[in-house]
């Protein structure tokens, strides 16, 4: 758990981060979202003290960050960088052993952990002897993540972790990371300027501008209850897509136009509208059956009915 209180950072007279406070609960993923220069990266780097705060307090798992030796502090916090920051002269095996060696693990323990992590990240063991320039961008990012996860830190900081990848690789790596067991238990603070990415990865989003927090809340809260005009306009460009991705079939379950009938193929009610429409399109279907596992019931819908239900839902609110 991370608690940030009245945190500030001044560079000369300009305030990069201006008296912000927030909490990240254990196991939660908080995304710091904003345009470049909004202070999100500075905020992130103050958590592991790559940047020293000008004022305020940070505690990680109840311990004051500023009272600890910064090197030792960082060994206990996972850190994933935008351009991965892999050492060009370290093989994958050596890269993964960096933090364990700083923590003075034995070689057997390192080897065991390496093996487990490679498997989880879908990297073949033959990669261990390769150097970063022999890996693709996506593989490099996986190795960068592996390096951060080796010592199993409870907290993970990710700075534009997918920023250097092409859009297609980025989307697939993102999906892969989201489904990693290894990450589900972790408290994660993630920086991005990509709204789609924020909505996809976040439990909660912290939208920042000019060193201040504009709104902090779940993706749905930001979309449907924006705190002010800035928050609303920040999401406007991609509003429809975001909404379709945020509203789940569950939210529309009670809509009158749906007919209760079981059929194949079926998708889970936990899916978003976006996923349902994509599913129809991809499989060239007229209609699809929604399965509601809670009540073990089914409803048959087509695209038209889905969209109608979505707009009704928006109009009368959730």
């Amino acid at each position, binding site marked *: 758990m991370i608690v940030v209180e009245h945190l500030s950072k001044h560079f000369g007279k300009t305030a990069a981060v201006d008296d912000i406070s927030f909490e990240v609960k254990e196991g939660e993923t908080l995304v710091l979202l904003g345009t470049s220069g909004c202070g999100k990266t500075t905020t992130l780097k103050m958590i592991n003290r790559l940047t020293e705060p000008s004022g305020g307090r940070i505690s990680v798992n109840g311990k004051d960050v500023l009272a600890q030796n910064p090197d030792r502090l960082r060994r206990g916090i996972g850190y994933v*960088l935008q351009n991965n920051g892999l050492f060009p002269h370290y093989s994958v095996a050596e890269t993964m052993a960096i*933090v364990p060696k700083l923590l003075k693990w034995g070689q057997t323990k390192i080897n065991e952990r390496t093996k487990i992590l490679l498997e989880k990240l879908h990297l073949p063991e033959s990669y261990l002897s390769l150097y970063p320039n022999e890996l693709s961008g996506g593989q490099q990012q996986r190795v960068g993540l592996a390096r951060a996860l080796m010592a199993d830190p409870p907290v993970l900081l990710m700075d534009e972790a997918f920023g250097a990848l092409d859009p297609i690789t980025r989307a697939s790596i993102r999906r892969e990371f989201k489904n990693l067991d290894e990450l589900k238990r972790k408290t994660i603070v993630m920086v991005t300027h990509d709204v789609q990415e924020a909505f996809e990865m976040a439990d909660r989003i912290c939208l920042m501008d000019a060193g201040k927090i504009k709104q902090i809340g779940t993706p749905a809260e930001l979309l449907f209850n924006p705190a002010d005009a800035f928050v609303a306009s920040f999401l406007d460009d991609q509003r429809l897509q975001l909404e379709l991705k945020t509203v789940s079939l569950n939210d529309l379950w009670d809509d009158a136009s749906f007919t209760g009938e079981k059929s194949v193929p079926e998708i889970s009610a936990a899916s978003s509208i976006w996923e349902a429409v994509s599913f129809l399109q991809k499989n060239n279907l007229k209609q699809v059956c929604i399965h509601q596992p809670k009540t073990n019931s089914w409803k048959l819908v087509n695209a038209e009915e889905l969209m109608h239900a979505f707009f009704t839902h928006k109009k009368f609110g959730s």
Partner: protein
Amino acid sequence: MNNQQSLWDFMRQEHEKLLTQTLEHLGLTFISLLLAIVIGLPLGIWIARKKQFAGSVLGFAGVLQTIPSIALLGFMIPLLGIGPKPAIVALFLYALLPIIRNTFTGINEVNATVKEAARGMGMSNWQVLFKVELPLAMPVLLAGIRTATVINVGVATLAAFIAAGGLGEFIFGGISLNNTNMILAGAIPAALLAIILDFLLSRIQHLSIKKMKVFLWLVPAGMLLLSSFYFVPITGKSKLLAGFTPEFMGRRDGDLGLREVYGLKIKTVVISDAIMYKAVYEKHLDVISGYSTDGRLKAFGLTILEDDKHIFPPYYCAPVVRKDALQKFPELEKTLNLLSGTISDSVMTDLNYKVDYLKQSPEKTARDFLVQKKLFRPANNGNNGTVRIGSKIFGEQYILAAMYADLIKGYTDYAVSTKTGLGGTKICFDALTNNQIDFYPEYTGTGLLVILQAPQKVTDSIGSSKLKVYDFVKKKFEQQFALEWLNPIGFNNAYALMMRSKQAKALHLKNISDLKTYLEKE
């Protein structure tokens, strides 16, 4: 082909010296290089951390680099004497800049994200330096070491001027003796050393990261090994230390004659004549191969040891003129001969003393002398053609050139251009035969032994007679080169062994045979 044959012969004949010199050369290069790395690397790291000092440190090292190498060696002598110490320090100073600069650049160029990642993983500053920055800066750093190595191999040839050995002994000896094979025997190995070392280091520099990890230890290990070569040659012990010029070392009327005729066995270092006098004065040396009219003889209180077995032939000075110049300038011969018979040994020594020690300009010294001898006439500012005067690169020749210039300007209506400071005998003589100059003052002994390279038979038969030598070179120069020796000026600037007067008196040494006897006593 003939030339190549004899170069090979020379190298075979002198292979022991060649090996010693090559090892000394390598030793000097790498001892200084190691020192430069030991000092330069931490300095480069320090300024990469504290950027505010980078400008001044790099600036200072840059200024050191711009000091001419001979001058830098000169500065070292008052501080460190002669021999390897000043040479190593000078080479070290030259190697410093490329090493500091490349360490600094190499570390700065390490990707900022990689450095941040290293810190983000929890590495301490030292761990970031040794595990990330230095390994990644290694190719740039090696490039700096490579540059410094090549510079040092080149500059180390000059170590021969200050008795530190190296391949410069052959190179500068060869230039003085007009011996192309000797020059090449020094220059070719020096060039090969530079090329081979550059190639080896470039191979290491361009290794892939994986191989670099395996082979990098070769660099320090190799350097240590090569440095140790300097200590391999063991020089014999003797009570006195002699310093001879590279030229003297290779001459029959020099070191070779001393060994053959006198059987003199003395520990010898090779040194430049520019600093030899001061070195003996400051007791770094005991015996030197000086010139009998050198002004510093007087300045430093030195005594000439009499050449009782007459191995040093006479070196009477006279202008050597192109025949076509004598025809083109009919007044020239008469004018140059005005100086004939006017300057004795002691007068020349005194004139040299004024220039070399009192730092009077050669022009003023020449003018004063001519005025005193009532030979001076104001310049006619004539323009009936220009006479080109040459001179070698030492005070006496500058004075003579200035006297001749004044005389020509005063007694004829020719204009004068002077090309003074033409390196050694070979350079001056080549300038004359290639019609770059019309005349220069030369010495009969040099003409006999260096230019004509007269066989031993001839030198043995005429060597001790002033007149016979003059007649011989006059005849041969006319036949072979169409050059005319005019009348001798009067003084004899021969080779001479010299010691501090006090020491010679204390040891009761009057001539070279005394010296030999003294050295052989228990």
